[in-house]
């Protein structure tokens, strides 16, 4: 299929400063609600969440690294993402045209099977109806529906931005988007330029050039600095991380202590 796209992301952890701008860019773009207390991270809705990793060594060998975690938009070896295969309501689906895992709030019945299935904790449940105090409803974007209590939500790769860009392209009698026409809010905001976003199938896009994913092999990469989260589960995430520190790359999967091979996109 000629127009088959696989949107994905490369996040350079050597550049990521852990500042959290991507998290807030996402919240502001996608009408994500907030509550008085957000310190219980299990019910704090953050489509993009920055985790802090430590190498667990004592002072002064200690080291930390931040790792931003959007939805991985997995395309598992059997063709489905873990969440898609469990959804009884077809509220989440994998798009073969874009490679984006969707979430349709009005279909979601709130059973939360998908949250159990997701190995990346990328999905969040709305335990309460959202409340925007004072005049804050005024800043809500009409491009993204606010979600009601009882449904699951997650990162959509700012799909509405894709739709807007496609509408514009169609009006101009084009079928293809230029690389910079569709970028996610986090990519655009990142003050450290750590995030690169684009079509992993398009050799002209920076993401493809950065990691050169092996299409026949679940998008694996041979880039020495690259890794994906929980590579060995076979979920084939479309988020690639780059780090020059070995302990960071090893933190991306569950390794046994005696396993001393580092994976750069290869299963052992």
């Amino acid at each position: 299929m000629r127009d088959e796209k696989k949107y994905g992301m490369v996040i350079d952890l050597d550049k990521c400063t852990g500042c959290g701008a991507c998290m807030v860019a996402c919240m502001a773009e996608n009408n994500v609600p907030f509550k008085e207390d957000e310190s219980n991270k299990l019910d704090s809705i953050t489509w993009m969440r920055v985790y802090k990793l430590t190498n667990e060594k004592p002072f002064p060998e200690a080291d930390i690294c931040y790792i931003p975690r959007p939805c991985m938009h997995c395309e598992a070896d059997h063709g489905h993402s873990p969440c898609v295969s469990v959804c009884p309501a077809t509220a989440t689906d994998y798009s073969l045209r874009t490679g984006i895992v969707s979430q349709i709030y009005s279909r979601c019945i709130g059973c939360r099977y998908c949250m159990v299935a997701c190995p990346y904790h990328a999905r969040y449940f709305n335990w309460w109806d959202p409340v925007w105090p004072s005049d804050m409803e005024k800043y809500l974007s009409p491009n993204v529906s606010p979600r009601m209590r009882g449904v699951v939500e997650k990162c959509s790769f700012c799909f509405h931005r894709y739709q807007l860009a496609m509408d514009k392209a169609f009006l101009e009698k084009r079928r293809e988007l230029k690389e910079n026409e569709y970028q996610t809010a986090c990519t655009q905001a990142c003050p450290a330029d750590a995030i690169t976003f684009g079509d992993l199938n398009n050799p002209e896009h920076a993401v493809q050039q950065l990691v050169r994913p092996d299409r026949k092999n679940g998008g694996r990469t041979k880039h020495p600095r690259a890794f994906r989260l929980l590579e060995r589960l076979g979920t084939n995430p479309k988020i690639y991380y780059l780090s020059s520190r070995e302990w960071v790359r090893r933190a991306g999967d569950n390794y046994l202590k005696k396993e001393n091979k580092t994976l750069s996109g290869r299963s052992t």
Partner: protein
Amino acid sequence: MNINRRSFLSFVIGSAAGTTLSPLPWKMQDDSAIWSQNWPWVPVPKDGAANYTHSICTLCPGHCGITIRKIDDRAVKIEGMKGHPVNDGGICILGLSGLQLLYGPSRVKTPLRREGKRGEGKWKKISWDTAISEVAYRLVELRSKGQSHTLGFISGSEQGTITALSERFMTAYGSRNFLQTPSMDDSYAMVLNLMQGVDAQAGFDFENTDFVLSFGSGIIEGWGSPVRMFRANSRWRTNGGKVVQIEPRLSNTAAKSDKWIPINPGTEADLAFGLAHVIIKQSLYDRDFIDNHSSGFDHWKKRVLDEYHPGKVAKTTGIDNSTIISLARDFARRSRPLAICGKGQGKTPGSSGEFMAVHALNALVGSINRKGGVWAVPRPGYIDWPEVKMDKTATKGFQQRRVDGAGDKKYPQSGSLLNRFFKMIHAKEISPIQALLVSDANPRYTLPDSKIIKEVFDKIPFVASFSSFMDETAVNSDLILPNHIYLERYEDVPGVTGLQKPIVSLSRPVIKPQFNTKHVGDVIIGLAKQLGKGTADAFAWENYENCLEKTMGKMWKTLIEAGFWTDPNFKKPKWDEILDFSSEKFAFLNNNTSIDYQYRPVKLEGEPTSFPLTLIPYDSMRLANGFIGDPPFVIKTVEDTVLKKKDSFVEINPKTARAYSLSEGSYAVLTTLKGSARVRIHLFDGIMPGIVAIPSGLGHTAYDKFLSGKGVNVNELIGSVEDPVSGLNAAWGIRAKLYKT
């Protein structure tokens, strides 16, 4: 039928049991959950035409260009402005949350007069005319008593017409007590003054340096202009630039640097001298600069060689002798090395001795006024108003000294000393300040030694705040005259902290004022017109917009069209422009002043015997700690090892924890000379044993429920220490103790 006790009870118990056992309550509960889910609680955002406006973010001195996406007349998103010389499309976490400030619950919506006691929170809404005349009445009264000098003004904006108008107002009124919130920019300005003889701002050519030696500066924690620093840091990751971070705690900057060297806190200057020692000993310094553009080198050299042998420095700093030697070599051998200081975000000034030592290190390798080095950026000179003709009262009032002693014999080089201002008032029985105006500042929260600051505020008979938000200072004032927020008003924004090029940006109304607020510029002009002929004459403008347009002159058109103005002809300044002593030389030692500024370490408050630990604050991009507090989105991103429910965590090394039998998450009481607070413990291997690190930016008592009452304000625990040269606050921490509860 007879109803007796027995039958009544059987009926009640029977019906209760029956209802519970029947499916009815469960069915009703289920139904009501489903039914209420269909209530239109979730808003449907109104659609409309999308449009974009450019402006400037003034939430911090970084001054990024921003683009606001609007749907009809609603602002829905703030993004970084593409093509802006500071941030080119990038934006920080606080800038992104600006709309929560605009539409949020902590806005002051109309002028307010206090009813009841200060801080009680009882307010009466008043009209703008009443509000301005009430301030005018107070000020006229003071003036008629010949006490014009007892008016104080604290301003948070740095340069530009708002500051100039405020200062002009004070001059025309007859008081010298105009103060600005201090930062490391003041310390750097002091250094440029003493070592180069210029009145300028320090600029750093980060885009062209290849080795940054940072003495605790949070390069990616918000030091300087945050987005610019992030971008520079990312560039070093790809072009081979190196960063060496020196500080006792593994900050994000330290973790991302090429080398982190932990140091005993407070000994940074010793290390700088130690490095200078090695550089001089091994003849690695820049001979051309030293021979042609510097003076006093031999004398300084002797002092460095005599007193800072690396072996000795190793003992003071806790850094290996060999590390010092190799660091000095690496630094001096690079083609464009740069040393910077100002701890964390640089929100507090520091020890002049330390700043001068670091600046001297730059001079030693010739990194002054060259590519990749430190530049002296001239202050913007476009404000050219006719001089104020002071009337008799004003002249008399102006003869009185400043309360903070800035510019006096002890601190001749300083312009404004906010911490000292409060200390001096505190020491007096009757406050030498009878009325205080506060604009764009929240000293009750942001200044160390909170207790003293609060006591001083309570002593001042009249306090008026121009704050747009219900911050700690506004809550405790007598009158609030709310300013428009930055997205609703015009303002010229000259300069970007740390940028080596002159730039002037324009903040403009992207949205019409949402509430009954008024531009502080208009309030000042309006106020001046009510104070009599003398002051009114100094403010001949119709309103602020008219004043701004006239002041900007030719620049105005560019500002309106592009949003910012840069000098197309700007080149690296000539030597005589940045070395303004008669000798036109860089002064390693300044002979013109009587000050003995030989470096002495800052002595922390508290005795080690009773306070065995050292408390240091740390800054984070996710915790705004200045005049602006965290909006809901930003506080949401704070990790649960920093803030959990209402408790904030302090970081200690597991070794320290063992000594005090503390473990992860346990509660403890942290005590210093200034106060004590209940905190929780977070074990962190990236911190030196014996050090306790506390996040700054928490512990608000004002603003909204999303921020208020969460965590501890570090300023309640920390004091200020007067720097012997500048009089600015030089405290970087305080001695402390911890015990388990």
